[in-house]
């Protein structure tokens, strides 16, 4: 059972995944970058980005997903997001106080407006996406390894 799952699911699922996974990823990026203009934001967009990688992992197996985003890269993105968010907050001290909106606000309804809100959204999306991908990977791999351990135990008993 576990060997079949590691290879991935059936051909239909793989084909549909290949067609849709890029669109899901792009939709996540859109939700993140337009967080200050339309509903959504860093958290929801980050979860959608993580779900695109989870989608890949469920359909193709973990090796294919790790080619796109390895565990080291995931933890690097998570840390980078946290540090970026905190440094944006601390940079507010250059003008006065914590979380000061120190970038110019620009015109409303434009993509590059609203000062620090766009970089904050990107930082949160990095953090949330990489973190949730890491959690899912940890839980799924735990189950794979448990199955393998059980198989080994059965073989040992025989």
């Amino acid at each position, binding site marked *: 059972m576990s060997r079949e799952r590691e290879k991935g699911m059936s051909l239909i699922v793989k084909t549909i995944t290949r067609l849709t996974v890029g669109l899901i990823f792009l939709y996540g990026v859109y939700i993140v970058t337009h967080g200050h203009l339309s509903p959504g934001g860093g958290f929801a967009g980050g979860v959608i980005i993580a779900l695109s990688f989870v989608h890949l992992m469920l359909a193709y197996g973990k090796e294919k997903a790790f080619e796109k985003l390895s565990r080291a890269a995931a933890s690097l993105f998570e840390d980078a997001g946290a540090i970026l968010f905190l440094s944006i907050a601390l940079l507010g001290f250059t003008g006065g106080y914590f979380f000061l909106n120190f970038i110019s606000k620009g015109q409303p309804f434009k993509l590059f407006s609203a000062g620090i809100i766009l970089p904050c*959204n990107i930082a949160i999306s990095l953090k949330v996406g990489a973190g949730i991908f890491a959690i899912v990977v940890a*839980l799924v791999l735990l189950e794979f390894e448990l199955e393998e351990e059980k198989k080994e135990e059965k073989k040992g008993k025989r």
Partner: protein
Amino acid sequence: MVELYVLLVLMIIGALIAIEIKDLLSSVIAVGAAGLALSIIFLILKAPDVAITQLVVEILALIILVRGTLKRDLPFSTTGRWLLNTIITACFVVIFLAVGMKCFKDLPEFGYPIMKVAGTYIQEGLQKTGAVNLVASVILDFRAYDTLGEATILFTAVIGVLAIVRKIGRKKVDEEIREEDEEEI
């Protein structure tokens, strides 16, 4: 308003099925149905930000639950200590109620300054932050400190999960710990 009540009934039915049914997969699907109904309720109540977040988190939770619960039953480990647990729970409830009674006396009257803070945000949010989406301007400008706390909670949760389920924490009794095992993680 009628559709709200229909969805509420659907949520209650889903929650009841999730609790009562014996099959784990059906229970997980019932939880997902309740979450979907909640997401549609948020959409009807004109909160699209929360609806999107609820929907994606629901999908994620469904994946984790399906992958995590299907194969094995987790043992319920609080048997044998029910008396101690009940006494501790009762003590905490009494303490929280006593402290809560003191705190509630200092709060303003229920619903009295209607929209005092929210009205300021609605009127001055666009000029002060430049963000068209008012929710984004609240969570990342006026209340950015709360968002920092939320991000910290998620960070801690990720560290906790990775620390609990890592390979080296689940070694067998007579297994040796090698350096390369640790690097793999």
